[in-house]
């Protein structure tokens, strides 16, 4: 059964190749080989975090902080501007004898607006970069892949990777010490 939302993947007959490893160490070194072979659209799957795997996979720094910065500053400017406009121009009111344009009481709300947008943009930016929510993934159709929450270690190489070639990639994965390599169909099928 396909999921509620279509996976954000290009069309094609196959999702890619799935290789299984019997230990985190084997997965780690296989990642280094796949990285060095120049693949970019691929991922490693493990039941638990493996220290240093991001370096073995050649993953760079996240772009998320820039999203946070831009949205945080937007919140700061927007929060201050809203209060200055509302209390100074649109509806000026005398409150405890203070001037209409005074930045001091607006600072806490400005700060909160900055934090609010920064926090929300970080969470939703993280969702966006991770392509979440994703209710279905072609790997879920592979019965063997269920081990990934228990004792299975996998590498999946996606078919739309520019370097992907079903035969050559399969040979590469087999040479990294995989115990099993299989082709994964585009939509959930069994095997």
């Amino acid at each position, binding site marked *: 059964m396909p999921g509620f939302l279509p996976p954000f993947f290009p069309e094609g007959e196959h999702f890619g190749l799935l290789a299984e490893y019997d230990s985190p160490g084997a997965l780690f070194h296989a990642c280094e080989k796949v990285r060095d072979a120049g693949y970019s659209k691929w991922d490693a799957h493990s039941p638990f975090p493996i220290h240093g795997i991001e370096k073995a996979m050649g993953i760079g*720094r996240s772009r998320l902080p820039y999203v946070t910065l831009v949205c945080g500053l937007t919140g700061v400017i927007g929060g201050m501007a809203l209060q200055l406009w509302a209390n100074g121009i649109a509806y000026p009111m005398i409150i405890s004898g203070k001037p209409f344009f005074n930045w001091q009481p607006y600072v806490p709300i400005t700060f909160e607006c900055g934090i609010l947008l920064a926090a929300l943009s970080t969470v939703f930016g993280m969702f966006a970069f991770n392509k979440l929510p994703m209710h279905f993934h072609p790997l879920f159709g592979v019965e063997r892949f269920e081990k990934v929450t228990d004792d299975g270690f996998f590498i999946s190489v996606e078919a739309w990777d520019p370097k992907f070639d079903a035969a050559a990639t399969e040979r590469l994965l087999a040479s990294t010490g995989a115990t099993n390599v299989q082709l994964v169909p585009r939509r959930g099928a069994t095997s």
Partner: protein
Amino acid sequence: MSAGHAVTVDPAQHSGKALGRLTGIGAVLGVIGLGASLALAGGTKQFYFSWLVAYMYFLSIALGALFFVLVHTVTRAAWGVTLRRVVENVMATLPVFALLFVPIWLGRHEIYEWMHAEAAAHNPIIQGKAAFLNEGFWFTRAIFYFVAWSVLATWFSTQSQKQDETGEERISARLRGAAPIGIVLFALTTTFATIDWMMSLEPMWYSTMIGVYFFSGAVVAILSFTLLLVHFAYAQGALRGVVTVEHLQDVAKLLFGFTIFWAYIAFSQYFLIWYANIPEETIYYMKRQVGSWQSAGMMLALGHFLVPFFFLMPRAVKRQSALLIVMAIWQLLMHFLDLHWCIMPNLHPEGMKLGLTDVAAFAAVGGIFLAALGWVSSRRALVPLRDPRLPESLSFENV
């Protein structure tokens, strides 16, 4: 490198002698500064006020070090073990501050208006505070602070040194048990010391935030100072490969955080007083809006917060020694301006007047402080050699 792996740090390469050169530099600076400040303004109000600013400045660095060590111990932190000894050395200079307090004690009648009998006689508010603000109690409290700080600093420092020889894990556990009590003592003594020595300069005024204000600046100062000390040790060939870029990045993160904390506290104090608009409270900021004091205040908002905030934000900056040194020196200058701005308007209400006496007193207190720091450092290793979490700290990496 796993935590169980036997890791040793070469005590010869990472000897405290790397910081030993500070003794000579400090002694020369101290003697010149002391001579110059006495020759320039010995015995005058200017001398005592300049001394007070310099004293609070270096005291804040040493107290910041005490705080850092206590928190590091109580949180059972592993990341900073390799640089903890450097901070411990700064902390261990605290007993010297009892000696450096002598000029303040001598000049107490010049500095603190409320100690004048005639000032109190005509002022019912000062009379009302007499139970707390009287010379005898003021002095007793000062003694209490020095005892508390000296005992805490000396004990934590010597126990850590003892572990270098025996390698007992029990020592870590013992320190961890005592650290919470130390933190409570630290919080109370630092707050009351700020009230006694800085807030009582204006006996009619009060702020419940002045203690934490001083504390926030103190942490910014010790983090900046630690960055400088580590690089000074690098230049002598020590600490390289032990305190790595990962540790520097963490110190810089804390510096970033406490810079924001300082701004938060500074603004909160200003904001509440501004909003309530009660004359006995607003007098503090009224004084600081006169002439060049106004510009100094603006400079603090910009230089002590906004510039470092954006400067320290990128990860790359926090891992770049040259930029960290620039920022550390900048924040240490700003911290001086901060204390100058807090204390000096009582002497020069007409506007900021930074003079040679200020520089000389700064060199005097700073020189003696550095000499003590160099002396303490040179007597032991610059790394806690046998701390149980040293291997973990050595292999620490930011993810």
